[in-house]
């Protein structure tokens, strides 16, 4: 029972399944049915030929056109300017590579920076740490809108525009919600651990990397995964800041907006959507327990 309660699933034995629970259950079933119908229809559509779809857009596929997926890899392309200044075409496999570089790099850098800053402010409790901590809280509470134009200009001026390293530098920020979670996790680690290691000869960096960090490594990878999924799916940042390094999500945006008759048919568009969806769905299936775990619970190990 305690374990269930910790996992956010707690049901008292004494409580019967109430009318209140039944009503919420019905709403949930309707919600899930809606999602399942949409996904099943999309999967079926992706396997239809254009003729099959035109004749029967509602029914289950009869054509099983698996070639639609292969076509997506050969027909979904974006024209970009290469490092040599020449225009050339980029295909889905290359877009996946950019997705991996953008999402993987950004997520790793942001998680590392956020965790490090949280460690520093929670361990070294001086006046400067208090200022840094308050900066995060104020920037999280205070909404600032409409600074995208300024960001574009600054990125351009610093020659970071349209470079992957520019996107990474953009993500070094620590003023995000995960800082507070890391801060709480590091604060929970008893000071004695670090003091013992210090007596044993560990230096300041080792106190972080060998003592404190391993204790929040579970949280670290959970945050990394959440950020990775977020950046993999993000198409607006690459649209504005990495136009010549299109990720798969950005390619999908161009694909959807395309009026070219080769792409402007529902089976092709939906097949393209499934191609971009599959990799992250696999990641989700593999790590679903870690991704959906209680972030507070995942804070301290051992």
């Amino acid at each position: 029972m305690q374990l269930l309660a910790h996992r956010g699933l707690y049901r008292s034995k004494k409580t019967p399944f109430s009318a209140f629970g039944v009503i919420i259950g019905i709403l949930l079933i309707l919600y899930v049915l809606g999602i399942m119908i949409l996904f099943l229809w999309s999967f079926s559509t992706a396997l239809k030929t254009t003729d099959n779809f035109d004749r029967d857009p509602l029914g289950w596929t009869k054509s099983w056109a698996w070639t639609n997926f292969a076509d997506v890899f050969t027909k979904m392309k974006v024209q970009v300017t290469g490092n040599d200044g020449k225009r050339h075409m980029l295909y889905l496999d290359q877009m996946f590579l950019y997705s991996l570089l953008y999402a993987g790099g950004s997520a790793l850098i942001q998680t590392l920076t956020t965790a490090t800053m949280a460690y520093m402010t929670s361990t070294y409790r001086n006046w400067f740490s208090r200022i840094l901590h308050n900066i995060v809280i104020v920037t999280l509470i205070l909404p600032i809108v409409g600074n995208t134009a300024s960001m574009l200009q600054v990125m351009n001026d610093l020659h970071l525009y349209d470079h992957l390293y520019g996107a990474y530098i953009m993500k070094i920020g620590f003023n995000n919600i995960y800082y507070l979670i890391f801060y709480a996790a590091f604060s929970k680690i008893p000071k004695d651990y670090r003091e013992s290691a210090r007596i044993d000869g560990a230096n300041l960096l080792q106190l972080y990397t060998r003592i404190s960090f391993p204790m929040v490594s579970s949280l670290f990878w959970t945050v990394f995964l959440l950020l990775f999924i977020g950046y993999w799916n993000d198409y607006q940042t690459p649209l504005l800041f990495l136009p010549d390094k299109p990720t798969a999500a950005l390619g999908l945006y161009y694909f959807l907006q395309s009026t070219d008759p080769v792409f402007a048919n529902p089976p092709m568009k939906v097949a393209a959507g499934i191609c971009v969806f599959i990799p992250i769905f696999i990641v989700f299936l593999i790590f679903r327990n870690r991704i959906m775990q209680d972030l507070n619970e995942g804070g301290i190990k051992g």
Partner: protein
Amino acid sequence: MSPALSIQRPSFRTKRKKKAMSTLFYTCMVLIPLAQFFIFYGVVNFNSILLAFKSYDNSTGVVVESWIGWGNFERVFQIFRSEQTLWIATKNSLLYFAFNLCVVIPLSMLFAYYIYRGYPAAGFFKVMLFLPAVICSMVLVIFFKEFVETAIPELMERWFHDDGWYAILSSENKGPVALMTFYVWFLFSGSILLYLNAMGNIPKSLIEAAQIDGAGEFRTFWRVVIPTIWPTLVSLIVLALADLVANQASLFSIYGIFAPTWSQTLGYYQFFLVAKYGADSPVNYPLASAFGLLFTAIVAPLTLLLRYLLTRFGPRED
């Protein structure tokens, strides 16, 4: 001499050296993130203020920058006076906020409560509710757009012999309902885990005590769960308000830069101003920045006020 007395105290010099090392380590560790924050938060927002007072002209093919004082703010008010676009965008933004507040937040809490209580298929529902959060919004948009534009019209024609359901997302009558459905449908995911985390911290003895006292499920939810998760609820309501002027409601994903006027929100309008030319031309930057500054000035104090009121007058755990 006893062993305790033989321990040597660190000298003043050693202490000073240790402190210097500690300061050096601290500086090295925070320097880069701090510099990044200074540039990408401080400089960017300061530049955004400056941009709001500038103008760019590239009618001659060369971008010419000039200072125009309050001209961009006057332009914003002028657009409000002369065009319907911004009034419609304001109305739509408020409508999305209201839906968030009245439909998404209560339903998310109820769904999270169902999972928290471990009712039948709670684990399955948890995965299904969270699934849209891991799917790219473009993928969801493609599935939804094609379904609404092709399957729904066919369905209506076959079952009800009504052929007026084509091009739903371009229709001023049916389009808003479709857009709102999409918005509500896929918005639960993000907050479910936060509510579950908050509910996970409720002591089970509290729930059991309430039920021993004869409280039913609804009463337990209303009187025990909501007051306990109130801080999380306040944060999500405040975030919804803060998002009022930034919320694009997936319009850019659905329509690109061609969203019909009736569908636009303030968030879309601002993003459109920048995304239309991107980095190719800065002509729209000043207007976008003036918009941002003006709406930040309105929404930021409102957000802080709402947070204060909800915290001050909301239910308490005791």
